[in-house]
């Protein structure tokens, strides 16, 4: 029985009440639009297609690693191994693309999935908190990469053509961007239209209730971490292809920036809220901020602190603090 809003206790008709009900994603979008306009007003070149291409490319990598990270955060965990995995994948990819050819792409995704699955098993079977488990595996991935090659390796000259999977263009759009959107789409469909995707959110929102409702917590978390591995591997592939090389610390910056991307989009670190669309906004926002500061000529000494301030401000605006009383 549907009833009029007046009869309904929870309905708030004031503007403030409505804003409180507004999903955090709208705030993230508002912040994004605001920054785009601000940068454009300051420097019209910001919206020229050449610059949009730069933003798109860096957003593509943040997006692929972010969508994986997103699910682990939604389940209430975190994946700190993405940086190590990106590095490992970049090294393996560069070294195998000569022999495996195009098969190196799916091969590396498979490696990512396996590494992610191992993270999941450490969490669900050996019951090590994800923060510690992935910190450990992240270190292991980096050392394996170091054991394979301590210094940067380049894609062999003969195989550079194969990198067109990422570096080329289709329908006038850069493949790297299209690929990341493809990954996004797959993750999006899984999140919204499959039971496992829904379960990831239920587990994050209320793990006890999920268990009592027959949700398989173990497999749900394993899936989340496996996909985090796939996302990181995809990011590693795009990164290695763009850079024509791989080395054991190439992924290090992405540990924190992937988390920042997820949180900027409005996904709560406490789990259960947020999702793919948020991460898309977060990735674009993050690269707009990074690129915008260079394009508008912010002093290099200020850039880091300004980026940090922006992240704090964005989270302040978009994060739904009604949900949690104590923020960890």
């Amino acid at each position, binding site marked *: *029985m*549907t*009833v*009029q*809003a007046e*009869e*309904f*206790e*929870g*309905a*708030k*008709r*004031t503007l403030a*009440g409505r804003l409180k009900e507004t999903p955090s994603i709208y705030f993230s979008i508002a912040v994004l639009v605001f920054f785009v306009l601000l940068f454009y007003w300051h420097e019209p070149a910001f919206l020229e297609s050449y610059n949009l291409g730069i933003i798109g490319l860096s957003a593509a990598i943040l997006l692929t690693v972010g969508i994986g990270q997103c699910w682990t955060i939604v389940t209430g965990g975190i994946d700190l191994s993405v940086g190590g995995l990106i590095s490992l994948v970049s090294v393996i990819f560069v070294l195998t693309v000569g022999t495996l050819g195009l098969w190196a792409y799916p091969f590396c995704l498979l490696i990512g999935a396996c590494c992610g699955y191992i993270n999941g098993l450490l969490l669900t079977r050996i019951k090590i908190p994800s923060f510690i488990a992935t910190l450990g595996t992240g270190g292991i991935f980096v050392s394996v990469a170091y054991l394979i090659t301590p210094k940067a390796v380049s894609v062999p000259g003969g195989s550079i053509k194969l990198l067109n999977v990422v570096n080329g263009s289709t329908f006038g759009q850069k493949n790297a961007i299209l690929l990341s959107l493809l990954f996004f789409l797959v993750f999006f*469909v899984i999140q*919204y*239209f*499959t*039971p496992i995707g*829904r*379960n990831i*959110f*239920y587990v994050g*929102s*209320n793990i*006890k*209730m*999920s*268990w*009592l*409702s*027959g*949700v*398989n917590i173990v497999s749900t978390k394993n899936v989340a971490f496996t996909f985090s591995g796939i996302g990181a591997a995809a990011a590693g592939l795009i990164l290695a292809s763009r850079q024509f090389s791989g080395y054991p610390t190439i992924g290090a910056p992405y540990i924190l920036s992937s988390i920042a991307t997820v949180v900027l989009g409005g996904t709560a670190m406490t789990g*259960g*809220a947020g999702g793919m669309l948020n991460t898309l906004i977060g990735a674009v926002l993050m690269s707009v901020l990074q690129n915008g500061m260079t394009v508008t000529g912010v002093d290099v000494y200020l850039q880091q602190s300004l980026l940090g301030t922006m992240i704090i401000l964005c989270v302040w605006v978009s994060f739904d603090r009604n*949900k949690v009383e104590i923020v960890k």
Partner: protein
Amino acid sequence: MSNAPSANPNRTSVVLMRRMTKRFRAVTALDRVDFEINPHEIVGLVGENGAGKSTLMKILVGLYHPDAGEFLINGKAISFKDSNDAMRHGIGMVFQDGCMIHNLSILDNVFLGHEEHFIKYGLMDKKRMRDECVKILAKVKVELDPDTLIRNVTSAEKQMVEIARLLWLLRFYGAENPVMILDEPTTVLQEQEVKTLFDTLRELKKSSSIILISHRLEEVIANSDRVVIFKDGKYIAQMPSANADIHQIEELMVGRGMLGNHYIEDKQREPAQRFRLELENVYKRGSFQPLSLSLREGEIISLVGLIGSGKEELCRCILGLAHFDGGRVLVEGKERNFRTPSDAIACGIGHVPIDRRNEGLALDYSVVSNINMLILRQLGRYGLIAPWRERENAGHWVDEIRVKTPSVYVKCGNLSGGNQQKVVIAKWLSSGVKILILDHPTRGIDIGAKEEIYKRIRLLSEAGMSLIIMCDTLEEDIGLGNRLVIMKDGSVTREVECSKEAKPTPRDIIEAIV
């Protein structure tokens, strides 16, 4: 029943509130309420959820500030900054479970934040603290070692410790006649413990005043000196408890009669012959001895017993949350073995938990998400969920169960308790379970909504659903059940038939329970 309370000129009220008003944006939570507390009395405060009881109490302890009205303490006008301020003026509240740190001892908890008063030579004088603590605990008749960890004491003892601590604090701040507020103190207690609690309160009354808030009207009438009734943010009436009548109070609270056929006994029907669930000599070491139980199609079994009687553990085993150590479980004639809740669900056994906010619902998600949670796999094709089928299914159940919500996309956290409970029930019904275990289905729900839940239980049974219920009160158990199964100390002591023509009285069966 008299009119609004007036200050007796012969004595000073400890607390006197006049025309208290509190608004939250458009909603007036308290509308010109008068309220008075005299020394040495227990005041029972009753009203439905949303009647304004807790708003008034929050003003009393300084958590809210009134928009208008007079507030006098011992005859002096006052306005509290915060709850500490209220404490200094001798008013404090006992919270149900919230304020204790579980891995600290009783002693540590009692003096938490006030250790500096026991400092001798720069160190804490443990011996003096211990002595003091034992003295404090003796006042509330708790004979526990002060070094016991809070985690290891029962909820009843915990509550007593809270009361003791509050009393100590208020005295510590120099209150001659402290005022303590107890909000639903008996929900977590056993009957015996309830008795102890009220004995203690009567003892404490000699030197303090107590405000008792409870849904259990019998308790309030039996244990208070005066009952004050609120409705919709307004003061309605007050009466001395000695000549209070429960039906009259209920009528005043709800604004309509609630006599007879309370549990819709006339709709009770005889169960079919077919067995839904048969337990044969199941047992679990340390919880319950081998017992057998059978549940028929359309039958309602009331599982009755104190906490520790084994009834909770039995239900947990049936639901796959714990495991039987032996015996056979037959569901519709087939032997089954449950390892996890999902096994039980696959066999058509559902569970409406006591703590619906934490165990029954994803409060951040919409009604549609919650209702469809168990059947996502059936709502689409090729592993993909069809949103329109989700909406259809949820809409169907919202209509069927009469969940009051403006749309199926509203967050469950924004619904009232009764409607949340309906969503939990809808969730299980939509998954097609045949057996439903209802764990205190009406807890914390106001009287109007309770009635609807009773009606729903009858309809379910009519439709052939088999139910096991555990209720808040014995009356409810008797009123709703086809059969009472009474457990005590881990075994079934009696089974009592409860046909609608011949309901036993609580007195008939109480000795089988305790």
